[in-house]
């Protein structure tokens, strides 16, 4: 159950970043980056099914746990290999690794609860339905024009 991003809805306000920071002692696990002056994207852990960070972790701090990649700060030595093993560059470390923990055990991650544009969701269907709707809309408009 990762956080799904609907990039078309993101307004780049960084409220998710602030909420995440508040939840994690000032160390955010999500970053909103601007894109060519036209869009903004929140980037965070994908909770990969085959999580490479968990594969390389020496101490067992990162583990695949059902549909999330969980992190046990008590086991982390801050060696930094997970940051080097994340294909998306979304883990960082100082004395400890920092990555999205989905605000576990809270029911809803604070970024999802906060996003004023509803660009973030833990429900894949919500995001995919919107994308399919857009695609259908586009093809209908195309069809009309071609008549």
């Amino acid at each position, binding site marked *: 159950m990762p956080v799904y991003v609907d990039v078309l809805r993101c307004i780049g306000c960084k409220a998710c970043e602030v909420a995440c920071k508040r939840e994690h002692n000032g160390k955010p696990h999500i970053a909103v980056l601007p894109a060519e002056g036209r869009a903004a994207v929140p980037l965070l852990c994908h909770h990969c099914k085959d999580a490479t960070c968990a594969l390389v972790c020496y101490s067992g701090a990162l583990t695949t746990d059902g549909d999330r990649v969980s992190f046990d700060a008590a086991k982390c*030595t801050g060696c930094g290999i997970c940051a080097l093993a994340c294909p998306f560059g979304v883990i960082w470390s100082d004395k400890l690794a920092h990555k999205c923990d989905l605000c576990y055990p809270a029911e809803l991650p604070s970024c999802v609860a906060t996003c004023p544009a509803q660009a973030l969701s833990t429900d894949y269907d919500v995001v995919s339905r919107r994308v399919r709707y857009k695609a259908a809309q586009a093809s209908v408009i195309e069809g009309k024009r071609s008549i």
Partner: protein
Amino acid sequence: MISMDSSRCLGCFACSNVCPSVKITREDGEQRVIRFSRCEEFCDLCVEFCPGEALSISPEGEDFQISFELIPCRACHTPFATRPMLRRIIEVVPEELQKDSEGISWVEICPRCRREMERERAARPAVRSRM
């Protein structure tokens, strides 16, 4: 004092992170230098947490240091990782996972550039629809 089997050291941050008396320090530039100063503490946290099992307690010894050349990022050429750490990733991660969805091998690209690539990929639908 501690001693080291340098062939097992990864050049990671674990020992310098856990040392309570800051006797292990590190410095990054073209090279990563990790310095071990004499310590009289009765603790073995660095030994316990070393992922490579490179450290052990020894009755005596001098200050020592180890240095690693940092591998430059294939994209931005900034030195970013030690060879043993990248080797661990190449050995442990299945080959098909060492490439991203676009077939680009990411291991020798620095995390900052990987994030840039991810940003571009993720933003593409929005950027295109707003052209």
